[in-house]
């Protein structure tokens, strides 16, 4: 694949615009709250699109296309079982606590609800995870550009990190959020023509169903037995592991996405943010799963004349991560090729900027201000926030180079993230809905859940990974293993938190008002029109999601 003048010009225009947004926002930044929390001033349509765009990083775009090619239409479970239900739950039940408590971050909510040690554990693990995720995203971008465009690895790293640093340093969270919305439109509109022409080339959905094995085009039909489907999962493992633990854990507790709802103008908008975001999220499989299914169809003997193949890795197996870049190279001519490459770059930048802005909020408010330097002027924390942005980007660059030298570090870090994130939702669920939950209980539960996750991974083995204690339980796919690890860690956290809470002293009710469901005044919706109320909107979305599951059963 080689780019021409028009392609480079489009990439350049994109860079100018994202940096320009940073300069435009800069003059509005007056305080640390402006820089780190956008001062709760962002309109609903922007928070909603930023909410899904923060998740629309490289892992989502390239990873989901790869999964579509590897596992077929079952990949939609990440959306129609996982994301939508969790987003509706966040909007209806959890946002009133996050927003109503006036906490500036998820760890700060934990400090209000439980205690400082629970906040510290969550803040430190989250800060480490986000900054390393950002580095891995950077590494993946440079590696991709090196392999498909033969761009220099170092230049790709420094240019993309430099651009993200400029616009996040200038405009903080607002700048990142505004750019995320631009990136959202670019990714969706830039990849839509690819889906249309590739689908046409594959003969339409009916021909895909005709050419592929049935388990690749049915979401549920072959999940009664783990051996019958490409993921190697029973439907109960999927519903509990992905649908409940992993999705709710990510969408409802990860500050990276929750932060986008917390910057809305008022409680109503904060609640509506994840629910409005769920509408485009529901449609995202058209952009990020369908191309993968089309790609594998184009490799069937009947369509050999189309001349498309997913590239192979050094070991001779299909390199699924190259599915999307290879489709772009195959179908996009000069001009629109620049749009496609810019969309890929945008997805990486979006992921990186999201991580960096979440990192600097948590580091400044939950680590620096809470444990190191208290009671300084607002100007001091604004300066620290800006410095942390630069430091976060520099650590990301170092991580990217470490990832280059040690290939396994990516897998290792993803694994550790899974151990930490897996059990987290149990802590929030109990903390928000059971007032008896104590700080000691929450902290012990998080530690027990993380240890349980590590042990489960150590005794299960899938695709050559895991089993480092003893390979006792073989699992067909790595994804299935991740669901089981998450399920076990959640269960251990849940019961440990309950047991320890029962033998330790809870906070008095007065201190839990606005933080626990039973002690919080419920938002009143009856004065609003039905389409502004979160409950009817949420129910409507769930009904449509169920219908989609039924259609692709």
């Amino acid at each position: 694949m080689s780019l021409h003048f028009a392609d480079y010009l489009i990439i350049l225009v994109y860079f100018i615009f994202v940096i320009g947004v940073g300069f435009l926002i800069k003059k509005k930044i007056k305080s640390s709250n402006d820089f780190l929390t956008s001062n709760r001033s962002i309109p609903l349509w922007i928070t909603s699109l930023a909410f899904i765009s923060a998740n629309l990083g490289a892992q989502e775009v390239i990873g989901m296309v790869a999964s579509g090619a590897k596992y077929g239409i079952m990949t939609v479970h990440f959306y129609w079982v996982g994301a939508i239900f969790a987003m509706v739950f966040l909007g209806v039940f959890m946002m009133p606590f996050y927003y109503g408590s006036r906490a500036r971050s998820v760890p700060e909510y934990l400090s209000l609800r439980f205690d400082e040690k629970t906040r510290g554990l969550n803040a430190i693990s989250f800060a480490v995870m986000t900054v390393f995720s950002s580095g891995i995203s950077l590494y993946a971008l440079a590696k991709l550009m090196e392999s498909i465009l033969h761009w220099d690895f170092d230049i790709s790293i420094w240019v993309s990190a430099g651009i993200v640093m400029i616009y996040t340093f200038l405009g903080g969270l607002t700048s990142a959020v505004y750019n995320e919305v631009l990136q959202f439109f670019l990714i969706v509109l830039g990849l839509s023509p690819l889906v249309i022409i590739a689908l046409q080339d594959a003969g339409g959905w009916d021909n895909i169903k005709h050419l592929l094995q049935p388990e690749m085009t049915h979401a549920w039909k072959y999940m009664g037995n783990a051996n019958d489907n490409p993921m190697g999962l029973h439907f109960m493992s999927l519903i509990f592991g992905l649908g409940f633990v992993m999705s709710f854990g990510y969408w409802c507790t990860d500050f990276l996405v929750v932060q986008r709802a917390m910057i809305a103008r008022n409680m109503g908008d904060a609640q509506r943010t994840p629910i409005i975001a769920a509408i485009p999220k529901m449609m995202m499989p058209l952009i990020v799963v369908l191309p993968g299914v089309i790609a594998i169809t184009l490799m069937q003997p009947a369509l050999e004349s189309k001349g498309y193949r997913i590239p192979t890795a050094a070991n001779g197996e299909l390199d699924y991560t190259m599915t999307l870049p290879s489709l772009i190279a195959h179908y996009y001519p000069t001009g629109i090729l620049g749009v496609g490459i810019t969309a890929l770059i945008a997805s990486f930048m979006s992921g990186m900027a999201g991580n960096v802005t979440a990192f600097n909020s948590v580091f400044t408010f939950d680590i620096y201000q809470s444990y190191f330097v208290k009671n300084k002027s607002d100007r001091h924390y604004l300066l620290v926030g800006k410095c942390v942005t630069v430091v976060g980007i520099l650590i990301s660059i170092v991580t990217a180079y470490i990832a280059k030298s040690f290939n396994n570090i990516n897998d290792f870090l993803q694994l550790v993230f899974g151990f930490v994130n897996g059990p987290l939702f149990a802590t929030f669920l109990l903390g928000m809905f059971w007032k008896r939950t104590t700080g000691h209980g929450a902290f012990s539960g998080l530690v027990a859940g993380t240890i349980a996750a590590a042990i489960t991974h150590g005794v299960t083995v899938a695709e050559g990974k895991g089993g480092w204690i003893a390979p006792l339980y073989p699992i067909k796919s790595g994804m299935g293993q991740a669901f089981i690890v998450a399920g076990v860690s959640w269960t251990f956290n849940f019961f440990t938190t309950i047991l320890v809470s029962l033998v330790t002293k809870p906070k008095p009710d007065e201190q839990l008002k606005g933080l626990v469901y039973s002690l919080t005044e419920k938002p009143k919706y009856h004065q609003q029109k039905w389409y502004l109320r979160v409950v009817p909107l949420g129910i409507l979305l769930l009904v449509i999601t169920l219908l989609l599951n039924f259609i692709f059963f």
Partner: protein
Amino acid sequence: MLKKLNDLQFVIGLFFSVVSVILLLNVLLDDHSSNLNIYTGSCFLVFGLAMMLIRGKGN
């Protein structure tokens, strides 16, 4: 103009309009350019102008 640039809808509209102009110019200047650039460029132009106009109406 500077005031308009403070509005995200206007910025997004302007971005897609500029990209559409590049795509359509590429069609005009390159004999071998694909029809895909025409279709995509036209769609981007409509989207870009619509975003800018919506912003204008909103004001």
